[in-house]
């Protein structure tokens, strides 16, 4: 039978991580399923988790006043969702709507923050991995802002 630790260790976000951290992370992880149309989190809510997506599709949306929400990104198998748990005020800035049946590992951010404070090596390892994702997403957001397919006027 597959253990939670072994399955978590196979997620691309944790690829190559020191096995000692897997046990620590698994202690903060829960296996979850979401149905299409449900929201994993909503803008403004307290952000005390992040998600390792195992399968499915989640739309990262921005709520618009008097308008349907706009999807700014989609998150799929093997991706990581959410870093608002990392920094105060620990509040979601977007909302996560499930588009396809989705399975994730939800990692308890509060539990992890405590573990990272107690063990800076773990904190540094996680931050390095999140920085890589943030750098990539920032790059993509800038590209998106250029609106390159608009007709030049």
């Amino acid at each position, binding site marked *: 039978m597959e253990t939670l630790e072994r399955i978590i260790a196979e997620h691309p976000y944790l690829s190559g991580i020191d096995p000692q951290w897997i046990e620590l992370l698994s202690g903060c992880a829960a296996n979850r399923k979401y149905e299409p149309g449900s929201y994993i989190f909503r803008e403004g809510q307290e952000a005390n988790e992040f998600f390792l997506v195992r399968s499915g599709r989640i739309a990262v949306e921005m709520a618009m006043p008097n308008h349907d929400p706009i*999807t*700014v*990104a*989609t998150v*799929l198998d093997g991706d990581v969702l959410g870093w608002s748990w990392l920094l105060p005020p620990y509040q979601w800035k977007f909302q996560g709507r499930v588009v*396809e049946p989705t399975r994730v590992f939800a990692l308890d951010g509060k539990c992890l923050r405590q573990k990272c404070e107690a063990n800076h090596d773990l904190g540094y390892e996680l931050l390095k991995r999140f920085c890589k994702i943030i750098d990539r997403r920032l790059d993509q957001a800038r590209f*998106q802002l250029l609106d390159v*397919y608009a007709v030049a006027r």
Partner: protein
Amino acid sequence: MVTIPVPEVAATPGFLVPEPFVVRRLTRETQDTFTLTVASHGGGDTSFVPGQFSMLWSYGVGEVPISISGDPAEHDCLSYTIRSVGAATQALVGRRAGETIGVRGPFGHGWPLAEARGRDVLIVAGGIGLAPLRGVIYHVLRNRRDYGRLILLYGSRSPKDLLYRKELAAWARLPDTQALVTVDYGGLNWHGRVGVVTTLFKYARLHPERTTAMVCGPEIMMRFVIRELRAGGFAREDIHLSLERNMRCGSGFCGHCQWGPWFICKDGPVFRYDRIRPLVDRHEL
């Protein structure tokens, strides 16, 4: 007085003199983009290499360079996917079946289909940049045993701007083919991917050492894509780009599309990245 020699071929219809072509059909692709299919009045051969372009003339309005977006195996007609953004393109997409337009070409160098034989083919297209690459897809699918896997990464502004939607869905179902589509912004009714075209690389199964990449879209998009390809291990000589400038004569005489030592109309529009890299990387050129 200096006499400039004019090649004999210049007077040939279809070279500098537009040849009359009759409109067979006009298909709406998106709100502002149409595919125009035309055939020679005289029923002449219309062979071309995917990636080549023609100069399309709407009589009394003007002439514009448009890439050929049809199937290279069809030798009796030519298709052009045209975004209606100015007077000449508006006039072209305003034509009805049976009406006539002027056609010069095809011009330029197309995609390296022979060079890619035996290899995987990666197509990265943005917006209307899929049009000049559609012929490559037709060719690879028609000659399936000559090529490895076909991977299409296509990005568009929004779901309503996606070209060839039915074909995209059909290509995605084919064996040895991966067709991934994304839009920069999606709404509630869009269940596909959202994000710029480079986000698709993560989901593509690529083997850079045996893959030829063909890229077409706005130049700024191609810069992001090149960065992604290089980071993913693609050699510069395996990356091919289609460029666009102010093409006029189509034959390198007028100089409008000169780009450093090259004329886009004659030496391009498809270039191998390692050959043009100093110019691609130079700002404001």
